[in-house]
């Protein structure tokens, strides 16, 4: 017993000493965690993270190879010499600028319209939820969360074709509308926690309901705007089935669709295909790497409430 506590306190002292060593400054107190560093857990987490990193590594090395280099190995060897030409080739074959522009337009449009509309609707619902009409609307929109996409898929394609919405604008409309259910769910819980006195003060000063929303509520919604914006952005950027069925013009195709077409056309040309995959994944991945903490806290916020 004594020896056990002794070794434990020794270990603790050692860890403290390591942490206190010059050049290994303790980071500015990330949390009040006084536990000792769990090296077993660290090692396990590091090893398991290889399952995430290995596919990404594979994507990179294959994209840098010549077809001959690829055929001679398992795919994991580091290429020598590196073949950068895969990227310009992929760029041309998939018409990358066009697919990127389509995806960017659809994503940005969906995020902007979603933030502007979902928050307004959620505000009206949250402030009137005790009234039958608004309560009914709330549950009407929420019920749609249960309806799987396949049931609307076939009729929707006819409808968008008839309305001339089988294009980028139509995709923006659809993402904005279909996101409504979940977004309202996320927003209303938060809006109800905003004290109504804030609004009443503005109303006494003569502000209209719209004005109250614009100058009082919307600025306070910023954390939830981040959450909804992130969820919408990732969904619209990566979605495959909706653009696949709705978009008819090949010139309107998004990045995932461009890869889909790729698959059939150049079946054996893995190196160019992988360069294309990398370019398709890179924009969102780069944004994520630079805003990692912000993205994760945003998503967490949405899932807790």
């Amino acid at each position, binding site marked *: 017993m004594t020896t056990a506590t002794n070794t434990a306190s020794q270990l603790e002292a050692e860890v403290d000493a390591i942490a206190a060593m010059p050049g290994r400054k303790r980071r500015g107190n990330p949390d009040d965690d006084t*536990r000792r*560093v*769990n090296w077993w*857990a*660290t090692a396990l*987490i590091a090893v*398991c*993270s290889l399952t*995430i*990193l290995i*596919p990404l590594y*594979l994507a990179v090395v294959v994209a840098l190879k010549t077809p001959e280099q690829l055929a001679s190995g*398992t*795919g994991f060897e580091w290429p020598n010499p590196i073949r950068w030409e895969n990227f310009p080739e992929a760029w041309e074959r998939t018409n990358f600028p066009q697919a990127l522009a389509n995806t960017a337009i659809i994503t940005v449009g969906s995020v902007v319209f979603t933030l502007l*509309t979902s928050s307004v*609707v959620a505000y*009206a*619902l949250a*402030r009137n939820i005790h*009234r039958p*009409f*608004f309560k009914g*609307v709330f549950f009407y929109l929420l019920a*749609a969360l*249960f309806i*799987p*996409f*396949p*049931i*609307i*898929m*076939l*009729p*929707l*394609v*006819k*409808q968008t074709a008839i309305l001339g919405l089988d294009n980028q604008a139509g995709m923006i*409309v*659809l993402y904005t509308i279909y996101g*409504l259910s979940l977004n309202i769910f996320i927003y209303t819980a938060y809006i109800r926690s905003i004290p109504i006195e804030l609004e009443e003060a503005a109303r006494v000063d003569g502000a209209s*309901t719209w004005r109250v929303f614009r100058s009082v509520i919307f600025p306070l919604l910023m954390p939830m705007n981040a959450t909804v914006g992130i969820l919408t952005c*990732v969904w619209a*950027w*990566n979605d*495959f089935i909706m653009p696949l*069925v709705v978009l008819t013009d090949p010139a309107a195709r998004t*990045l995932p669709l461009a*890869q*889909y077409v790729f698959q059939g056309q150049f079946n054996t040309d*893995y190196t160019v295909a*992988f360069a294309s*995959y990398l370019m*398709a*994944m890179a924009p*969102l*991945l780069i944004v*994520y790497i630079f805003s990692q903490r912000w993205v*994760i806290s945003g998503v*967490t916020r949405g*899932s807790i409430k």
Partner: protein
Amino acid sequence: MTTLTQAVRSSSTTGEKPARAKRVRLESRRALPAFYWMVWPAVIAFAAFHTVPVLVGIFFSFTNYAGYGEWNFVGFSNYLNLFKDDRVLAAYGFSFLFAIVATILTNVLSLAIALGLNAKIRARNFWRGVYFVPYVLAILVIGYVFQFFFSNSLPKILSGIPLFADNILTNPDWAWTAIVALAVWQACAFAIIIYLSGLQTIPAELYEAASLDGAKPWRQFTSITFPLISAFFTINVVLSLKGFLQVFDPIVALTNGGPGTSTESVTLLIFRGGFSGGEFAYQTANAVIFFVVITIVSLFQFRVLQRREADF
């Protein structure tokens, strides 16, 4: 009598007493007009692009519409035929097998990783960021990387094991496990974050008290950790099962339903039959059944899991 009710009515409704109107307006039965203006456009748009397609789908499920040309009412024959169609039954079998296995794996693995990330480890934020990466990748695109891995790399690396050496994706009995691997790989990213936020709500004092009482880590997990995050467990299981039942992208990326139709999910079947198979009406009937099945499964799960939650 009449005067009484009138008095009550006039005090409960507004507008009749201009002097009080301003303060009482918010509590009145009718909301401010602006609130209706905020909601109506959304309701109309939602009805037009969500409810109308649903109703149109249900309508056509009672016809023999092929997606083009003439059509007639056929009553319930689409629905009856669905239950006799081996391909449809196989698709439901595959979807359920896939969804159940993937749900179990996703929740076990992501809970384990969330526990690891919640322990005091070096560079925790970095690892947390790494595990969330799959969430921002298009599953179709990373799926093509997995497809290359299963069909080209793995046969060379594990050339001694016949199952992998012969390309698992072309094996009718085992191709589904590769799809599970890809789907779980991606779904874990989100599930880990949800579990992690659940774990962070547990006060550290509970563990200190438990270890003073001599509780081993496993006992601490079953008696403290798991009961306290069971709400997060419920939501994760329900969401992942619902999502996995509708699996589409990972199949397109890896096997495209093959070999044969051995990895064809319900969504893929509806997509294929409805768009290129001339089975518009038939597959909308399938989609209606699918909707009923998913709703029943989700509600059933909620009931079972919430009852279990209450036991603790």
